[in-house]
């Protein structure tokens, strides 16, 4: 093991300045909702993950939106059909990677772990010594950082010190060595939230803090709470933060606003999934697996739908199928969608009728409007089909 000695002058200028900054900046207002239990086992559960991913959706234009890069050049290539197909697949994989959800874990408590007490070393130096393992290729969580106090105690460094040392030797791109002013001052974060810069705040939060830090929990909870009030859920849709957000609402039994938004935007499957997630987390004895399985059979996964969307850019076969496609594109729904809608509406109504729903009137209204719109669409769909002479299957 390669050990490097790092001397920190706690009484030096740097410490003073740090202290000054600490004094001048008030801590942010704590969020009201917290994870009381460890949410990790439920979150990492394969079924939960699937539900969350499905709810997140995958809009390629959202995921691959234009970003600022040092070199914004483009490359033009010739490709055969097979190569193009491979390219599409790799793109969807890349998009899924970009939507990787940040881990949801419980707050890690700082515990003193003393290795040895050597009173003989007392007053050897008037500064602490921090030893950091900087072996190449080791994981951050496995990296050992120990501190020799001035009174001769050798102990594992606190989480704060460990993070600081890790950042010093293996800097994470975008992480600041100090608390960003945005997170330090209450009015600034409030301003960001009122301006609906949710994605920006969340992106910075991910980079700045580890998922097990209390600040991470606090700020992310605040963002989600604010979102629940402003109801701008669409801003986070198809980003990596949507999954944790939905999980947060399901955990704290406040899914109704998100549910309403999903019904209003005609994402019925997502609504069903959200309800199912909530049932799963709170162990409600309702059989949801069956409905989900039915819906899965009818609906493609986000990755599949993204692929079909990509492929639709390529040539379409001519003939009768073309007409059918045209009808679909005009109405926006296929026969499968109508059956799926029926199943999901049934499930949603069941939820609204149960004691779990809090905003019953609002949800019922939304469902009613959607039903009417769907009815109209179905009629139009059947009429068009008849007119074009396509047999009803």
């Amino acid at each position, binding site marked *: 093991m390669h050990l490097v000695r790092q001397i920190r002058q706690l009484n030096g200028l740097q410490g003073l300045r740090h202290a000054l*900054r600490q004094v001048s900046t008030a801590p942010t207002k704590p969020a009201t909702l917290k994870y009381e239990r460890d949410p990790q086992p439920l979150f990492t559960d394969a079924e939960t993950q699937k539900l969350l991913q499905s709810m997140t959706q995958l809009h*390629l234009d959202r995921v*691959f*939106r*234009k*970003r*600022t*890069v040092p*070199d*914004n*050049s*483009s*490359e*033009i*290539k*010739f*490709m*055969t*059909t*097979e*190569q*193009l197909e491979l*390219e*599409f697949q790799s*793109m969807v994989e*890349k998009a899924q990677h*970009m939507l990787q959800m940040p881990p949801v874990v419980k707050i890690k408590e700082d515990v003193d772990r003393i290795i040895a007490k050597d009173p003989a070393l007392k007053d050897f130096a008037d500064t602490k010594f921090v030893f950091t393992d900087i072996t190449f290729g080791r994981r951050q969580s496995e990296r050992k950082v120990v501190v020799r106090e001035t009174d001769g105690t050798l102990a594992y460094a606190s989480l704060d010190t460990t993070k600081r040392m890790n950042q010093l030797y293996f800097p994470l791109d975008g992480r600041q060595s*100090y608390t960003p*002013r945005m997170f330090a001052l209450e009015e600034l974060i409030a301003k960001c939230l009122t301006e609906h810069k949710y994605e920006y705040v969340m992106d910075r939060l991910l980079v700045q803090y580890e998922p097990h830090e209390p600040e991470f929990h606090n700020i992310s909870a605040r963002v989600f709470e604010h979102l629940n009030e402003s109801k701008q859920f669409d801003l986070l849709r198809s980003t990596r933060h949507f999954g944790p957000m939905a999980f947060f609402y399901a955990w704290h039994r406040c899914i109704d606003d998100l549910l309403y938004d999903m019904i209003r935007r005609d994402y019925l499957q997502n609504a069903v999934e959200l309800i199912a997630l909530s049932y799963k987390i709170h162990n409600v004895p309702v059989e949801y697996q069956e409905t989900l399985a039915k819906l899965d059979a009818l609906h493609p996964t986000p990755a599949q739908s993204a692929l079909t969307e990509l492929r639709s*850019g*390529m*040539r379409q076969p001519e003939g009768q199928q073309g007409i059918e496609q045209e009808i679909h594109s005009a109405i926006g729904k296929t026969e499968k969608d109508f059956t799926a809608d029926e199943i999901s509406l049934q499930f949603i109504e069941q939820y609204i009728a149960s004691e779990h729903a809090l905003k019953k009137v609002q949800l019922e209204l939304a469902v009613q409007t959607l039903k009417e719109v769907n009815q109209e669409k179905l009629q139009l769909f059947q009429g068009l089909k008849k007119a074009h002479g396509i047999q009803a299957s």
Partner: protein
Amino acid sequence: MLQRYVRILCQARSSSNWNYSQILSVKQNAGIQYLLCFRNTSFFNKLPAEDIWRGVTAVSNAGKKRGRGKGSGKKVAKDLNKGQSLGMGRNSRVWPGLNSPVLRGYELVHSQKMTDSHDKVNGIIKLRDSMSNFRIMKLNPIDRGWSGSKMPGRSIGPPDSVGEEEFSSFDTRVLENKIVFIMKGNMGRKRRYSVLSVTGNGNGLAGFATAKAPEVRTALRKSKNRAGQKLININLCENRTIYHDFYTAFGKTKIYCFQKPDGYGLICHRAIQTICKVIGIKDLYAKIEGSTNVQHIVKAFFIGIMQQRSYKNIANETNLYVVQKQKAKNGYAEVKGMPYLPTTNPYSAAVADYMHFTLGNKIVLKEKKIFPFYFNSKGHQLYQTKEERFRNQAFVRLHDLVNSYF
């Protein structure tokens, strides 16, 4: 007698600006008085003002042929009558019947002194001074051309409208303005001005033309209007750049043009820059090889830009998909061109390089970067090692400044 004469002289001096040196001299000596050769005529009062001024301002015919009198501080004829009025002089008076009515009401107007004469005289002098030195008006820096106050690169406005057709959204820029001579048996060496200008609406419609005329102004107007008659429609890629890299040539001028990403700008010869601005191309890199004759550059560039192929045509020609991957979109692959009959042969795509295809199987010679002579010397290495400890100084200073809010 003598006193009277002197008085007249004084009066003459005071009343008008009369140059009394014509009255040569008056000697006053113990009552004897005589006049020395008095002459009443000179070219000042014999010739009209125009002819007198020509002596100062113009250059003789022979001199003109030799190219004299073209300097910037050229003299201009002044109109000395400007600002003057009859009966008004250094000592302004009211002269009834001359500069005022004889009767005012029922009262007879008497000759009287007028006030504020001093300002008037000064005003006239100022007016004359302002007439004398003609200054070239200072150009706004925005309107400057390629070089100083020369015409090339400058805008001369939209072409004149023809009937109903108006060119209001157009802008014309001069590319070349030069003197050309022709020799004729009976006329001798005849000089004309040749102007090459390019006009366009900044949205893919542009034209260029040369015109010659004996005067610059007419040449400019002619070429501008002629360019307006020769408009060419140019398709722009994403409304800002060219469709693909291309090679084009006219005579000994060879141009390599490259499509560039948004925000790159126009990195090319100033003539191409001006043409691109007029057409509406915003991002382009072009390298000229060979002659940089402006007329040839313009022709070569227009030929190249007209011979561009769309993505669809390229795809059909090669039977391969044309796919664009943007780095700003994290490598998002966008299908730009689809062939009617896509090939299934994977080998053809591996062989076909897009750049080779668009440049006509030419390969751009990328020169090796040449480092300065001292680059590998010991002294330079020493300098670099010494400098290394200051490499983050600027960042640290900036960081300190950033973290001090007030």
